[in-house]
């Protein structure tokens, strides 16, 4: 019983972070139709960024996060402008190759900059592990989960309720159309990519207090983000959210219900099952309300 609540608690909190990461990927994909294989490495950008600054107090942590996220956003902007933009028209999924290679480059860059393995930062949150429903939850995870949820809500508000959001959706549906109604799509694209990168970096910042980081974590995170987006259904942000949580719970459950690496396959099989039963993802396309 207690283990069950433990599983749920852990799963949900971890899942919320996955959802946040997936959200960034989802934004970039749905607007630009770019599959960003480097996404997980943008998360590492956040993690290593804070590791590098090594904040010790909460204010320090927040300040550092702001800076790091800003940098990540800027980096995303530059990447889009220099690498992605000019390849969007190209066949053969050129952006795919570029983002993959970018991720690779980032991975080995981190390898060089941070030779010491599996580092993390001191827990910045002023409260320590607390009891919820009889299970103890580390403060880092709790904070990360809650903040991720808030951010996810913020992002969906941005997309469905703001002008920028409707511009994004317009570009995502017909670039030609967007141009014909006078939308500066390059700006939208850059902003979107920067936003996606920033979100990833935030997730990284939330992870680093309790998740030791190493360069190859990037690909894992990318894959998890993909799973979240696919299971969530590429048309729905609510889907992404619930898919993230599902993945989190599946992981937590798998880690103790089935032993060893069967846990991994269990998760992916579950994933496969979901997309078989519901090819369009968990949640049907949310009928876009007239903004």
């Amino acid at each position: 019983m207690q283990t069950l609540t433990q599983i749920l608690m852990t799963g949900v909190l971890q899942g919320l972070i996955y959802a946040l990461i997936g959200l960034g990927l989802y934004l970039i994909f749905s607007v630009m139709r770019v599959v960003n294989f480097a996404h997980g490495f943008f998360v590492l950008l956040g993690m290593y960024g804070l590791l590098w600054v090594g904040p010790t107090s909460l204010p320090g942590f927040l300040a550092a996060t702001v800076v790091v996220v800003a940098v990540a956003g800027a980096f995303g902007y530059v990447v889009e402008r220099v690498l992605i933009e000019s390849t969007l028209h190209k066949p053969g999924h050129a952006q795919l190759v570029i983002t993959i290679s970018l991720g690779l480059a980032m991975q080995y860059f981190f390898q060089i900059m941070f030779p010491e393995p599996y580092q993390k930062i001191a827990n910045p949150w002023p409260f320590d592990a607390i009891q919820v429903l009889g299970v103890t939850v580390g403060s880092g995870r709790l904070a990360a989960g809650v903040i991720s949820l808030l951010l996810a809500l913020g992002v969906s508000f941005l997309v469905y309720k703001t002008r920028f959001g409707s511009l994004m959706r317009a570009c995502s549906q017909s670039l030609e159309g967007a141009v014909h109604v006078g939308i500066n799509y390059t700006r939208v694209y850059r902003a979107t990519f920067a936003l996606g990168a920033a979100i990833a970096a935030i997730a990284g910042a939330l992870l680093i207090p309790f998740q030791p980081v190493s360069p190859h974590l990037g690909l894992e995170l990318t894959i998890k983000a993909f799973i979240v987006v696919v299971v969530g259904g590429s048309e729905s942000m609510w889907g992404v959210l619930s898919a993230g949580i599902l993945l989190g719970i599946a992981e937590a459950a798998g880690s103790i219900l089935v032993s060893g690496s069967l846990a991994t396959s269990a998760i992916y099989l579950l994933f496969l099952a979901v997309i078989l039963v519901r090819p369009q993802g968990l949640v049907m396309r949310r009928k876009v309300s007239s903004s």
Partner: protein
Amino acid sequence: MDTALLVEQFSVWRGRSEIVRSVDLTIPGGTLVALVGSNGAGKTTFIEGVLGILTTKAGRFELFGEDVRGRKPWDLVNDGLVVVPQERRLFPMMTVEENLDIVGSKGDKGRGARFTRDELYDLFPRLQERSSNFAGTLSGGERSMLAIARGLALQPRLLILDEPSLGLAPVVIDSIMATIREISQTGLSILLVEQNVHQALAMASWAHVLDAGAVIASDTSDHLRDSPLLESGYLGVVPAADEKGTV
């Protein structure tokens, strides 16, 4: 009265082939000008060139007397150069309503004719019936209507219509042509691209004839209507393929 659009030695490329070759063309402000020409003459290419989404080279390119060479498409649109494209280019996953809104959300840069939602729906009752359907599910003709409505909602100063009657029922064509005539009365400059040359000439005060990427005649509609060129040149068969050879 000033000129709405003026281009000189205007060339447009598609990929590696120069489709429109150094065209000179003027649209006096507040008039309705027709651009006619056989298929593949390069009308659409010309328009996409003007909007700046194709590779172009221009000796002169002025919009309302202002040099706009190298200007980005969206800037032109926001300055009131509105194109209703041949392929319609709607937002398939947005409702008819939203398709018209995305425009409204653009702020009021274009200082042109202003159409209220109701006026648009009066123009195209069919759209009102379908207003909450996704544009992607509309019929061919309904798409045309929506595209035109969206174009009008953009508050254009110069409106370019690429084959607005394409795929429309005759009765709808009548009403659209009527509307176009109507709005041109309001002093809005219009470039009308049409296949149905007689209809086009009937409406326009002035017309340019495009053939194989070059303007072969520019004259008042009346003159053109009974010019021999119309019979020979315009109705001439489509350009032979070997002009571009075989791949």
